[in-house]
């Protein structure tokens, strides 16, 4: 899973950078330009630290909230095989969230602060998880499309300039391809089934296609922070480049199993991608995207309530574990 820069009013690099020591800044820029990795204790400009903290924590939140739409179907998976697979996938998403929170913490923000920011609605997460999972076919569509889009975004981030983030991405990417394949396998099974099952799959595909394209974030001309993020190697490709790549790869996969892409403007264009060919596709509904970013997604409130409830209802377990540790430490201190 993944998230892109969702805050349009993020502090711009230039106004923070003015305060930095020019010699240190120049040395930092040179290291990054030479594709060196930046590690937690290294000097870094404040804007770099802030941008990364925001990006990595949003990414972590997306993994954690991303467990909810799929978790919704674990108890209703159609077979034991599917259930075991989905359970493993959702557990992976929890793991991804944890790798990422750990990476973000190395920048100096505590786990607690990040979780509070999520629960208070201050922090964003990927808009994709504010759509409901209505049928089992949605689980196929999510694995195939949502995890597919995430892979497209995350593979280049394995070379992102911040070491802990890059290392987390290597682990995540290794695990992610199982997610996409199990999703596509569900789609294949549905499309090989009855007419009703095929209709159900097409319906899920129709609902997830556009939100998946939105996962790459706003268009390049409407993405003011992209240039700085690319210069800092926090980002390695632009939103539009990745979106195009995703469409080009996914359309044939859809056609191979008999799904119709819900886009009347979709057409092969020989001239695209420097003559290698690529698809022209219709305009994404960015009004919908920004509405969902603002928390107006169909199930945004439900998602946050589920997160807060899980946190609150688990409080006694966390407290009990701390009390136990304290008691044992006290006993050991006494015995010593």
């Amino acid at each position, binding site marked *: 899973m993944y998230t892109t820069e969702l805050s349009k009013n993020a502090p711009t690099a230039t106004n923070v950078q003015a305060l930095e020591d020019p010699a240190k800044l120049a040395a930092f820029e040179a290291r990054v330009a030479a594709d060196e990795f930046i*590690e937690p*204790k*290294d*000097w870094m400009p404040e804007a770099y630290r802030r941008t990364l903290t925001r990006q990595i924590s949003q990414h972590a939140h997306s993994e954690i909230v991303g467990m909810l739409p799929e978790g919704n179907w674990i108890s209703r998976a159609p077979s034991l095989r599917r259930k075991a697979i989905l359970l*493993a996938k959702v*557990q*992976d998403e929890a*793991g991804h969230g*944890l*790798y990422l929170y*750990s990476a973000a*913490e190395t920048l100096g923000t*505590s*786990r*607690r602060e990040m979780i*509070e920011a999520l629960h208070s609605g201050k922090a964003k997460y990927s808009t994709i998880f504010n759509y409901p999972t209505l049928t089992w076919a949605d689980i196929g569509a999510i694995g195939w499309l949502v995890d597919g889009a995430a892979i497209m975004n995350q593979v280049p981030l394995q070379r992102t300039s911040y070491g802990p983030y890059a*290392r*987390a991405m290597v*682990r995540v990417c290794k*695990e992610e391809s199982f997610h996409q394949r199990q999703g596509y396998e569900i789609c294949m099974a549905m499309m090989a089934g009855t007419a009703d099952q095929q209709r159900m799959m097409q319906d899920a595909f129709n609902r997830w296609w556009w939100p998946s394209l939105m996962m790459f974030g706003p268009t390049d001309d409407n993405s003011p922070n992209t240039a700085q993020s690319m210069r800092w190697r926090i980002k390695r490709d632009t939103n539009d480049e990745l979106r195009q790549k995703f469409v080009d790869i996914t359309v044939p996969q859809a056609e191979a199993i008999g799904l119709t892409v819900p886009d009347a403007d979709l057409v092969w264009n020989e001239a695209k991608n420097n003559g290698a060919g690529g698809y022209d596709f219709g305009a994404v509904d960015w009004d919908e995207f920004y509405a969902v970013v603002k928390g107006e997604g169909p199930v945004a409130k439900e998602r946050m309530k589920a997160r807060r409830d899980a946190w609150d209802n688990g409080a006694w377990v*966390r*407290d009990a*574990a*701390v009390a*136990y*540790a304290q008691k*044992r430490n006290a006993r050991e201190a006494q015995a010593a």
Partner: protein
Amino acid sequence: MSKDWPLWEVFVRAKGGMSHRHVGSVHAPDPEIALRHARDTYTRRMEGISLWVVPSAQIVASDPADDAQNFDPAADKIYRHPTFYDIPDGITHI
């Protein structure tokens, strides 16, 4: 709200014959739970056969600002490297 549980660094031995390698960190209130969390978080796919968890606060790290002083001197002690020594052609196994 209470505080975060303490942070632990996690090290995994991938297989016999290899050393433990740092893989990430977990929060936990005590060593047993740290090990469990490390197991669930970092070894879901046969990534290792042994785990270490170490309280992060116990790690003492060098300061990147001292990198030059700590790690560069090797360059002026090139006689530590085998290539410093000229051995005539025809002399083998050395």
